[in-house]
């Protein structure tokens, strides 16, 4: 499956894109969570491959990662569990660079592709360090999604949008992942700046916690990523169907605009 082609097609049909996140290896039903998310109307799903030192993450994702690691999750194990799991929407791996580096660029890219993952988000690989991973990923037909931040200057933003594949990830706030009371004003400003320099899908993430917030954040952008709010439910013991319900509520809100 091609990430960008898939997302473009849906966006161009007038749909706001919804990309939920799940921490790989968090409980033995996590692949069922993927299915529930897809059935509830996700357009793509981010699969977190936990790392011991996730600097961009707030308490919820940190806890989810730590819990998954304590349950014995490994990068190879998580990707192996994805083999043959076809939920009908593209899967995008999210992890930190040491996991990629330790596995080996080519090996990691190949194992993503071999297990049906078509995209990758590696937040601590910014433009300057992108070459090695970017080449290996491209050779394996894995699309690398880059993150843009509210402080990214214009010229850098254009370059980043040019080199990002699949979609461009707009980090809504200066800060880390985690639920927030409201959508930061910087989210709309950044999305607008990005839309002005790229026609790739622009998807906003970080702090999108409720259906109303999803609608608000998607106003200037093509869609939203939702992570901590869903992982909070999962950590509190929610079953896959309940995660599906939460995603469905976001879907309905986005469709209603």
């Amino acid at each position: 499956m091609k990430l960008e082609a898939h997302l473009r097609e849906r966006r161009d049909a007038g749909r706001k894109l919804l990309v939920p996140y799940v921490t790989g290896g968090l409980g033995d039903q996590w692949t069922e969570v993927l299915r529930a998310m897809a059935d509830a109307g996700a357009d793509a799903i981010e699969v977190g491959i936990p790392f011991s030192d996730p600097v961009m993450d707030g308490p919820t994702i940190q806890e989810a990662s730590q819990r998954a690691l304590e349950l014995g999750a490994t990068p190879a194990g998580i990707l192996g569990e994805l083999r043959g799991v076809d939920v009908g929407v593209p899967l995008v791996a999210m992890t930190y660079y040491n996991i990629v580096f330790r596995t080996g660029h080519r090996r990691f890219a190949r194992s993503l592709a071999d297990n049906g993952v078509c995209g990758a988000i590696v937040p601590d690989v910014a433009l300057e360090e992108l070459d090695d991973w970017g080449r290996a990923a491209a050779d394996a037909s894995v699309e690398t999604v880059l993150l843009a931040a509210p402080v990214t200057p214009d010229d850098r933003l254009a370059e980043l949008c040019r080199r990002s594949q699949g979609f461009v990830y707009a980090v809504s706030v200066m800060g880390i992942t985690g639920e927030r009371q409201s959508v930061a004003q910087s989210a709309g400003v950044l999305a607008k700046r990005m839309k002005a320099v790229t026609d790739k899908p622009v998807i906003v993430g970080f702090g999108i916690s409720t259906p109303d917030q999803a609608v608000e954040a998607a106003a200037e952008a093509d869609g939203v990523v939702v992570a901590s709010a869903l992982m909070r439910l999962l950590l509190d013991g929610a079953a896959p169907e309940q995660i599906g319900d939460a995603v469905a509520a976001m879907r309905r809100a986005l469709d209603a605009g």
Partner: protein
Amino acid sequence: MGTPAADGRFGEFGGRFMPESLVPACLELEAAFTEAWADDAFRDEYARLLRDYGGRPTPVTECTRLSERLGVRVLLKREDLTHTGSHTINNVIGQALLTKRMGKTRVVAETGAGQHGVATATACAMFGLECVVYMGEVDIERQALNVFRMNLLGAEVRPASSGSRTLKDAINEALRDWVATVETTHYCLGSVMGPHPYPWMVRELQRVVGEEAREQCRAVLDGADPDYVVACVGGGSNAAGTFAGFVDTNAKLIGVEPEGGAAIGHGVPGVVHGSKSFLLQDEHGQVLEAHSISAGLDYPGVGPEHAHLSSIGRARYVAAGDAEVLDALQLLARTEGIIPALESAHAVAWVIRAAGTDELPAGSTVMVTLSGRGDKDAEQVMKVLDART
């Protein structure tokens, strides 16, 4: 030990593996430090503060009784005699001065032993900067006195409760804070690690240790350089500053890591906290916890320039274990009347173990950087020694 490549690389190590949100801040810092370091007025002010406030120059002390006992001639570079009691003050005064120059008003820092935290709190008090120090919960317990000191100095100490709850997690928390506050906040990193320009900048701010020591050694040794130059390595800042003064001499450079946190000794290449270096990690790439009797060395990584110096063979990295470190601390105390920090005692421990062997032949001259004084560790050492008997 010159300027790293434009991408912050020392050979294959270093770099800037940072989330996009922090890249502009790293670029700003690199530009600010590059400009400041080339500005005589900045350098003069930095030197003046190190002298009038920091207590520099620190002396080199010849250890007559220890030398006699070991059969090698031991000189100590006395960073324990600085204000706040360790080399960390050199780095912090420089970064606080830079914070002012960049127009920022708040500083965050991480601390393991508490030494870098105390130094940062001290400099922030002196410069009137707001100061928040992240410290692992485990270290807060181990170093209660330093927590109290930081509070006295007006800093807020925030516990890092994730992961191993030690130094590496304090760094993660400091980075998370910095992402959210970067407009007004400078991250005062405590060692030669992190994304470019930190490894280079911190080494330059510690260079004074090695440059003073070289001149002082030459005065003591009739113009000669020591045969060996030894320093303990946590992140590696005191060692980097020391080595910078001797790298173009014939001295053999020895970095001493803690046995349970020997990133060069037992680690493999990896990337954490912004740079590529040696790292203690499992086969999947998860960072392992380091274990050392000294909180200041309890770090699973090491500064990238040390990884480079090791890979090109210019410096050698060895390890010392907790027990011999305690022995070394006591021996130095009893022979010379100097109680070293547990961190520094690692360097002394290697000298004691190696003296008279092929590693450090009898009759050699060895200069050891005593990175800090042992007051902060007294209570902990008391407990461990009590438990021993």
